[in-house]
């Protein structure tokens, strides 16, 4: 994912003289092409994220389009007040990129995990929150984020994540993408969990359950059109994110659901628990620990679907 980001920001920086890249002392070599093609528009701001965010806001107020890049917790929670005041209060068009988001850096310990970033940034007025699902979505999201006139937070993974799109999809910020159609349940993924949802759908398919999969690359603003459709159409809707179950995509959908009229689907949220991970482990280990695997999603969704069906068909449950 980060290579796709580097390639796309280089392409955009080459054609748009307003694009400036600010890095918090990471991405050694990753941005060599950008530095070469967008001369004078790359800044290693050092390990000083509060200043970096303020500098970006100042640049945006002068007509530039700064993109701030560092590891997710350091570009979000570390400098939250600068994002709130300098960026959002000024409605400064700064694109904030958090790399290695979620559990990407599980093995580096909780200082490097970011399972709160979307929850926190989602609260800020003017802010758009994106979690692209693969390299294709990153390229399209970055390109489109540059056309907005306000701030954007984009969380991305690290490298080697599977592709979820075989061909270029129709990408619009604020509209989810249907990866596959299905008739029995709907699986919503955001960020790197979209590919997990594709695999969960495959497992469900082997059990005779037809699952629709949606890539919710935009966490704010929510795609209310798609939500209204899927929560009316399916008995079960599952949401998965490499993020806490508090305040992220499932949190946002819950807020939306609370105000929704009429009967609607059961929401099953898959995300990290309300805890720090004190033991070390790989990203795969961490995902298993929190149930963020295709197998677990398929299992839980299938069980809930069967329960919903039996409730529906069992006369004792009806009256």
């Amino acid at each position, binding site marked *: 994912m980060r290579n796709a980001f580097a390639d796309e920001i280089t392409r955009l920086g080459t054609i748009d003289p307003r694009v*400036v890249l600010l890095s918090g002392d990471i991405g050694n070599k990753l941005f060599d092409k950008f530095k070469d093609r967008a001369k*004078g*528009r790359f*800044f290693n*701001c*050092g390990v*000083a994220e*509060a*200043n*970096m*965010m*303020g*500098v*970006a*806001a*100042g*640049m*945006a*107020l*002068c*007509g*530039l389009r*700064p993109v701030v890049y560092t590891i997710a917790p350091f570009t979000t929670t570390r400098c939250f*007040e*600068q994002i709130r*005041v*300098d960026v959002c*209060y*000024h*409605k400064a068009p700064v694109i904030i990129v958090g790399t290695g988001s979620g559990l990407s850096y599980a093995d580096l310990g909780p200082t490097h995990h970011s399972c709160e970033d979307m929850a926190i940034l989602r609260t800020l007025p003017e802010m758009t929150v994106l979690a692209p699902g693969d390299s294709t979505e990153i390229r399209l999201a970055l390109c489109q984020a540059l056309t907005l006139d306000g701030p954007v937070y984009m969380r991305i993974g690290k490298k080697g994540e599977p592709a979820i799109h075989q061909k270029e999809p129709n990408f619009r910020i604020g509209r989810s993408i249907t990866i596959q159609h299905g008739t029995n349940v709907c699986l919503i993924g955001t960020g790197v969990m979209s590919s997990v949802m594709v695999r969960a759908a495959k497992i469900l398919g082997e059990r005779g359950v037809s699952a629709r999969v949606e890539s919710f690359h935009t966490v704010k603003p929510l795609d209310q059109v798609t939500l209204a459709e899927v929560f009316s159409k399916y008995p079960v809707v599952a949401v998965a994110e490499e993020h806490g179950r508090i305040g992220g995509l499932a949190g946002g959908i819950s807020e939306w659901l609370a105000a929704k009229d009429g009967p609607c689907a059961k929401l099953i949220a898959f995300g990290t628990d309300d805890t720090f991970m004190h033991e070390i482990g790989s990203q795969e280990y961490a995902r298993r620990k929190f149930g963020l695997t295709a197998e677990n999603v398929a299992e839980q969704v299938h069980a809930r679907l069967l329960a919903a069906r039996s409730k529906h068909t069992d006369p004792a449950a009806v009256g």
Partner: protein
Amino acid sequence: MRTAELEKIARTIRARIVENAHRTNTPHLGSCLSCVDILVAVYFNVLRIDPTRARDPDRDRFILSKGHGAAALFQVLALRGFYPESMLETYGQDGGVFAEHPPAPAYLVGIEAATGSLGHGLPMGLGMALSARIQAQSYNVIALLSDGECNEGSIWESAMMAASQKVERLAAIVDFNKWQATGSSEEVLAISPLADKWRAFGWNACETDGHDVAALVRLLSNVPDGSGKPVAIIAHTVKGKGVSFMEDDNNWHYRIPTADEVTAAKKELGVTA
């Protein structure tokens, strides 16, 4: 503009600030009075600005990083012609834009950055100064800081980056009135030696009397100074300057003057209207 005229404007502004604090029941009087001469020097004799073309891309930028001095800045902007003085009658009123800190630039002409939380204005100013370089423009950026504000780590993060980037069109003025909200800036976080701190961070630092308008104009007119370094001006000031019973008394960080005190202050300042 001649020094005598600038000093007269400064007295008028001080009187307006004291009146405003009484009328609107708002604090930070001491902090506003300490920076009046700096604001007058900057706005009337240093900045290359035109209130009729307030968004000219090549204008000099001024950021009140010590946002709690807004009541002073608002008076200066009015006298400099950005908006009529009568607009200030809405200060502190529901639905207005004049509050105790500068609003977002889109909401008030003449404002370059919304501040109030300390340690934000200098980094934003640095971003603006770097933009001038990127966009091949030649404007200067001046940020006015308080000594208490130098408690913030983001100020020193910004100081280091400005030095590493050799941003010479950036000046930081510290309104060094020796006080912060609840105590002396020396006692709270051992601020001295302040000029040496800026020098150690790679800036050209100098010290001056922050109430000497002519000296301030002279120093600021020399930015950039050709050294390739950003410029720090440590402006020694007196909190509550201009009103004897407020000077160097930190109670006036929050105290509101009575009607009699307003009359006494105006008499001292020689302002009758």
